[in-house]
């Protein structure tokens, strides 16, 4: 089976190809504002490196947030359009779970003004602390923190274990690409104001 794994929801673009349980390609590059420029060339490079034609892909695993709103939309628009085009399943993965997949840890993404998106996972990728939007100062945990962002706590750089993520989610049913949507975990400011 040929799988594509993708995360565009943090500062780093992560693309991986897994063929029959083996990691055939992995790129994790700091991307900042150029996610929309880099995504397709890296996908192209990944497929070429592995000698995989795009129509041979069997499944897409994509991180659907939380994280950078624009970043998530870039990866998800790609994933849902491709899954629709190829009629293959697409499996959404929590971005925080992916960040925490290296070791049991609490993954953090800077959400500004003292807030973070936080999620804690054990070594089996079972949630210990459900993904949420929370003040960093309110998090009480024994888990080590991992994050790509500079925060006011000590953090380790995430080690994304694509094989572990895929092993856990390989048999997830996948969802209709039309229904694949970001998990923002936060309303827009306009909605917050309107809803009080």
């Amino acid at each position, binding site marked *: 089976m040929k799988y594509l794994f993708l995360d565009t929801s943090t500062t780093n673009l992560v693309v991986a190809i897994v063929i029959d349980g083996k990691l055939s390609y992995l790129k994790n590059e700091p991307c900042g504002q150029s996610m929309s420029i880099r995504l397709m060339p890296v996908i*192209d490079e990944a497929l070429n490196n592995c000698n995989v034609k795009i129509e041979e892909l069997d499944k897409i695993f994509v991180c659907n947030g939380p994280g950078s709103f624009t970043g998530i939309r870039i990866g998800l*628009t*790609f994933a849902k*359009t491709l899954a629709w085009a190829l009629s293959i399943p697409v499996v959404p993965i929590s971005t925080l779970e992916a960040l925490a997949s290296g070791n049991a840890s609490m993954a953090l993404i800077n959400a500004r003004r003292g807030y973070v998106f936080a999620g804690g996972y054990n070594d089996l990728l079972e949630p210990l602390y459900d993904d949420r939007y929370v003040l960093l100062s309110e998090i009480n945990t024994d888990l080590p923190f991992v994050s790509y962002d500079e925060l006011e706590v000590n953090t380790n750089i995430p080690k994304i274990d694509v094989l572990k993520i895929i092993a856990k989610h390989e048999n997830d049913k996948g969802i209709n690409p*039309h229904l694949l949507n970001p998990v923002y975990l936060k309303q827009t400011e306009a909605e917050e104001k309107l809803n009080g």
Partner: protein
Amino acid sequence: MDKYILAIESSCDETSVSIIKNGCEEISTVVLSQMDIHANFGGVVPEIASRNHVKNITLVIEEALKKANMTMNDIDAVAVTYGPGLIGSLLVGLIAAKTLAYAYNKPLVPVHHIAGHIYANNLVKPLEFPLISLVVSGGHTDLIYMKEDYSFERLGGTLDDAVGEAYDKVARVLGIDYPGGPIVDKLAHTGKDTYDLPLPLNDNSYDFSFSGLKSAVINKIHNEKQRGNYIIVENMCTSFQNRVVEILVKKTMKALKEKNVKNLIVAGGVAANNGLRERLTIECEKEGIELTVPEIKYCTDNAAMIGAAGYYAYKLGRRADLELNAKANDKLY
């Protein structure tokens, strides 16, 4: 050989996909407008627009192909609005277009939003050159000279608010719900030009400025209120609209004369404005100028116009690579 372009437009709050044959024939168009959603907020909220685009994009693509009774295999190229517009909104259409072009190995054609508005007229009748185009919408106010297909010379444009934006803002201070532009236009026809408002940027350039006029309306309302006077809303609408139309028509007619051009096309959402249409019709008749204004459905944002423009860009060999990015602002060339 017939060429079919699948076009995607998502620069503001409409998710739209069209299939256009040979740049002039609309095979199918789907427009999913978010106007009702943004009406709750008194204007387009960029983050909400982006969220709705990503929700709808594949549904709209699928629907456009279904309506055309076609598959991606029947498509010769994918055209997409890369700018200008709201960056988050643009990105959704752009990534979808890049993905489709890549997955189906089709050429990817980048289209400037304003080129689309102009080429909306090509769906009505073939453009005749040379021409002047007045592009007026909620996001744009531009005077463009074209000596032939897909050659654009921008003569001037707004230095601040777009004309449609000024309409919506004036509507809001008059207590008219978003989007208030069309209502201001309607009320203007029932009122009298009684308020002393300035003719904005009345100079020799081809540029426009509407924020001063908008402020003049706000100040006038404020002053009248302080004096305990009621504002006669329809009269304010007439006074405001008369100034806007006068300056747009004046500079457009000047451009036609100086460039010695006999074809004028009006494009963009404000092309639906009756006050503007009436004045331009009269002036163009007087000067022997052929005026073309697209149907209302082609005035507002839609992918049909991107498909029409995209066909000509495609024929000229314009192609984008996988790095194509969305641009909030970009020169029309």
